[in-house]
């Protein structure tokens, strides 16, 4: 028995040598992944070059669907909104998170597990549920307006999600609520890992809180900042659920975003080619932004 095992082991290839059996292990996953993800994406690219209403025969469109992204105001607007929303979905959470990490990096906190659990909670709730909760807060007789009236600012109260000017920032604030906890948890964990000695050394050099932040905290958190920006940007641009449940893109198209426009065009107004072009453009935008983030934030580490 033992001998047989030894001879078998002997005949086996050396470790690290190429093994064809690897393909067999990958095959099941690859088939599902290729058929239901890669192939449809390829079809999206193809569809983006045709005009199709989903029923009759598709006709070639050349680059028309892509040209329309720049020339058609109703297609430019969603992308503009998405970029504006990134201020709320990515920039603001990261800024708030950094500010807090800066203030809190000096103190040891008791009950951190509790705070972390609560702050991260918005990330695990279904966005549909988040949308229902915030619709209620932002409703004409919702919590926000009640609070404004209670402190004598009733003049500012308005139907936030139905207001042409305020609907977009209102939806943005919901995104800030979702993303801030993630950034805080990331940065707090990162700040704990910055060696205490660096802070002590900075203080010995007479650095104030501001310079300490700039020279110790910020460089120390660079990897976490890259992760936070990547996650919030990707989530912010994939943002369909929240828009669908809170505003449906309205009023008018004041809160329409590319993710919503894909659905709207493909399944409500039968502009399948155009919808595919929006989806592909959104993909390109996500890739460009995430690559830029990793270049800017991580690459500067000389």
């Amino acid at each position, binding site marked *: 028995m033992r001998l047989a*095992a030894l001879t078998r082991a002997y005949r086996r290839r050396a470790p690290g040598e*190429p093994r064809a059996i*690897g*393909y067999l*292990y990958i095959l*099941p*996953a690859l088939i*599902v992944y290729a*058929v239901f*993800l*890669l192939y*449809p994406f390829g079809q999206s690219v193809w*569809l983006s070059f045709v005009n199709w209403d989903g029923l009759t025969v598709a006709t070639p469109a050349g680059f028309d669907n892509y040209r329309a992204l720049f020339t058609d105001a109703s297609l430019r607007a969603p992308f503009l909104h998405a970029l504006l929303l990134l201020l709320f979905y990515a920039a603001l959470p990261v800024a708030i998170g950094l500010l*807090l990490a800066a*203030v809190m990096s*000096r*103190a*040891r*906190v008791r009950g951190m597990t509790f705070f*972390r*659990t*609560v*702050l*991260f*909670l918005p*990330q*695990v*709730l*279904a*966005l*549909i*549920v988040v949308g*229902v909760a915030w*619709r*209620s*807060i932002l409703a004409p*007789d*919702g*919590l926000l*307006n009640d609070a404004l009236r209670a402190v004598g600012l009733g003049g500012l109260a308005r139907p936030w999600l139905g207001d042409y000017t305020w609907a977009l920032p209102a939806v943005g604030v919901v995104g800030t*609520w979702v993303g801030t*906890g993630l950034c805080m948890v990331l940065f707090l964990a990162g700040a704990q890992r910055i060696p205490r000695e660096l802070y002590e050394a900075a203080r010995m050099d007479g650095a104030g809180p501001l310079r300490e932040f700039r020279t110790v905290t910020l460089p120390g958190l660079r990897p976490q900042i890259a992760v936070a920006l*990547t*996650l919030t940007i*990707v989530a912010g*641009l*994939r943002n*369909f*659920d929240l828009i*669908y449940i809170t505003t449906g893109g309205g009023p008018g198209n004041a809160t329409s975003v*590319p993710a919503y426009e894909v*659905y709207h065009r*493909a*399944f409500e107004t039968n502009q*399948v080619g155009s*919808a595919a072009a929006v*989806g592909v453009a*959104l993909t390109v935008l*996500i890739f460009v932004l*995430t690559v830029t983030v990793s270049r800017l934030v991580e690459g500067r580490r000389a």
Partner: protein
Amino acid sequence: MTTRLERNVTYGILALFTVIALTPVIGILTTAFGAQNSLDTGFSLPKDGLHWSNFADAWSRGHFGTYLGNSVLVTVVVVAATTVLAILAGYAFGVMRFPGSTVLFHLFVIGLTLPQEALIVPLYFDLRHAELTDSYWALILPQTAQSLAFGVFWMRTYFRGSARAVIEAARIDGANTWTTLWRVLVPMGRPAISTMVVITFMWTWNEFLMALVMVSDEAHRTVPLGLAFFQGRHSSDAALLAAASVLIALPVVVVYVALQRRFIEGMLGGAVKE
């Protein structure tokens, strides 16, 4: 040494953000126990006792019993399929060398940032053509494919980090690649696997767009889709809407509170480059 002031500021800030994070959650909870048919669409506090009947109404009148059943079925199958397939593929990518493995692995990684919106349109027409829309398959297969991007990435990281010595020892003992995987590496990798399981569970349970596009009949609705339609019909009934929201969020929140480390690790880990 930190001063008392610094400590108080720290706790003050944490408390403030805890309140902000919890306000919508607690608002929904209190509203869910409030009276039905109040004209208030905002949050409310239960005035005359807790109305547990809201949950029963949402369950039966809102058909959330059926929707929860559908969600459980879809989620269980997606999580099981993703786990098995991701372990197999992650194992090969992690410990074996073969031509093209890098390229193939990067194909999976692309899926981490590829937005659903970029493939859902053709996917719908393909599945409709195959007469699979309005079936559980239309929810299970695409969501398994999407979860695999994270699953394969995550499991490969685990297998890469697992000790070479262990694999070698198993090999010398005569174990082939298959037994090494299931007898040695999978039992050792329970933490990594459970992280993947909870993340996939949460994503699948919360998934909305796929269900919205693929399902038009009520029999196959999952809970998020059910809630969206429920809001359309009962938007004036804040109590029922809130009760339904609680029913949907509860399973994920319970698992999250129990295993929050796994959740946070998994959700932050997906973006960490090598």
